[in-house]
């Protein structure tokens, strides 16, 4: 952080960054604004930007109709649960692949990724039949396992890449110091891998959060997460943009809050990692 930065440059960068950020973010902002409109205002032309009758009736309707909190809880459980489970399995695997690679490591990595290549719709019947047979339909743990397996290759991949960034010599040095392997992981590798693990955790939680095909097809009510909640609002005979926007805002709210906190963690992790 010792870089000398001129104020002019910083202001320029600030302007550019905010512009880019706002452009990328605008659709979501617009969606949130729309969620406070009446259906008539939502499809008005020319569009109404800020000076309209703000209303929370869309939210009231949704909360009255749907079991939002159950769905939100299921989403949190499934996405975070599956990612944590994924980390438990993937950290050792990625560590081994990155620091003790064999001749087949690369093939193994690619093979892992290839398990995700089947179009989900093609695997629906087998999995559905199995789940039905095992009594796992609409079961939180059943879906959790599926989400875990769906994301495991990605988790391994990301961790592998981040681990690869860590210079092997540092580990070698630690080893020469007589540190045991376990200590090597805890004291040398882990602190350096924090940013990588944090970003893997975040990205995979989001991927799991957004996974709509399996969560919709394997759950009905008890285990149904927000993807199913939103599917209930994605169409209607009649105007529905405002309601849809409100439902969408509710559907992304928990993950945005989560992202906000983890972003802070992430930044701290990043600086920590960079210090060395």
């Amino acid at each position, binding site marked *: 952080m010792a870089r000398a930065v001129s104020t002019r440059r910083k202001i320029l960068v600030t302007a550019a960054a905010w512009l880019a950020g706002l452009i990328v973010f605008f659709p979501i902002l617009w969606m949130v604004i729309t969620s406070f409109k009446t259906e008539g205002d939502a499809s008005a032309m020319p569009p109404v930007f800020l000076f309209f009758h703000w209303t929370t009736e869309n939210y009231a309707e949704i909360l009255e109709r749907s079991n939002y909190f159950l769905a939100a809880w299921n989403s949190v459980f499934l996405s975070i649960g599956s990612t944590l489970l994924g980390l438990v399995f993937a950290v050792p695997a990625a560590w081994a692949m990155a620091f003790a690679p064999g001749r087949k490591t690369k093939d193994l990595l690619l093979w892992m990724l290839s398990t995700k290549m089947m179009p989900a719709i093609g695997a629906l019947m087998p999995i559905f039949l199995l789940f039905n047979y095992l009594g796992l339909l609409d079961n939180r743990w059943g879906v959790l396992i599926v989400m875990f397996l769906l994301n495991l290759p990605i988790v391994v991949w990301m961790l592998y890449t981040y681990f690869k960034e860590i210079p092997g010599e540092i580990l070698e040095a630690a080893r020469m110091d007589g540190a045991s392997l376990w200590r090597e992981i805890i004291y040398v590798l882990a602190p350096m891998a924090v940013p990588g693990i944090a970003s893997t955790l*975040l990205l995979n939680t989001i991927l799991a959060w*957004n996974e709509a095909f399996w969560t919709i097809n394997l759950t009905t009510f008890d285990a149904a997460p927000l993807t199913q909640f939103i599917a209930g609002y994605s169409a209607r005979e009649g105007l529905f943009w405002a309601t849809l926007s409100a439902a969408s805002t509710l559907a992304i709210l928990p993950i945005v809050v989560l992202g906000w906190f983890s972003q802070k963690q992430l930044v701290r992790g990043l600086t920590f990692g960079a210090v060395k």
Partner: protein
Amino acid sequence: MATQQTRLLARAAVAPSVLMLFIWMIVPLVMTIWFSFHRYDLQNLDTYDWSGWENYYYFLTDPAFIQALIVTLTLVASVLVITVVGGVLLALLMDQPFFGQGIVRLMVLAPFFVMPTVSALVWKNLFMNPDSGLFTWISQSLHLPVVIWFTNYPLLSIILIVAWQWLPFATLILLTAIQSLDEEQKEAAQLDGAKPLSYFFYIVLPHLSRAITVVVLIETIFLLNTFAEIKVTTNGGPSTSNLPYLVYLTQQASDIGGASAGALIAVVLANIVAMFLVRLIGKNLEA
């Protein structure tokens, strides 16, 4: 380098993941292969019977097949280019010190939080709608001709939506990689008075190559299976149906056998694409 002990330990560390993924892969795969050789009509199980290669024959000779193949590849390639180039630029920008860094970073990350169905619906209805979308209003205000997105540029519209969703993913991965770039290296380069461009091409880009490889490979896997965005916006059609969509249509016709065959063909093609990519950029995976 690695001792016998580490090697054993490494095997033990990899084994659980491999085993679980193997089961997860092989069971549905075998069942899908089995179904693909059968006449399997979900709504008429009486006709369940061995059908030989019939399902494959029908899927491969479908007039929509070649078109779907082209759509699949165009979609993947375009989104990859947009997100990688855009992601590198955004990551470089986000890496600079500026006011409100945390908020802006979250804003850039935000599209990734939005489920594909939702983002497709929002873009389609609130922006690209030819009568009351925001884009229409902008063109009208500027006295430009109104673009009828999903009619005149259906595939481009979908590409834009999908790229918007994946841009944050690329940005975050690349940003993390940039930040692991040695501070000293950065400072040294600046002290040397390296021009920004040569600094970028000789130091930053090589450093990012592995991260880019990962972005490309992971995104490819997801993009090959783009589905919700197509379903919500154009519902397929000759110019926007990709392979998974074709499989979905077969399944919709209650033909599980045909859909299984289609899915297997899609898997083979996806593997070919992945192999091609690995040839192209895979050297970055080496240690």
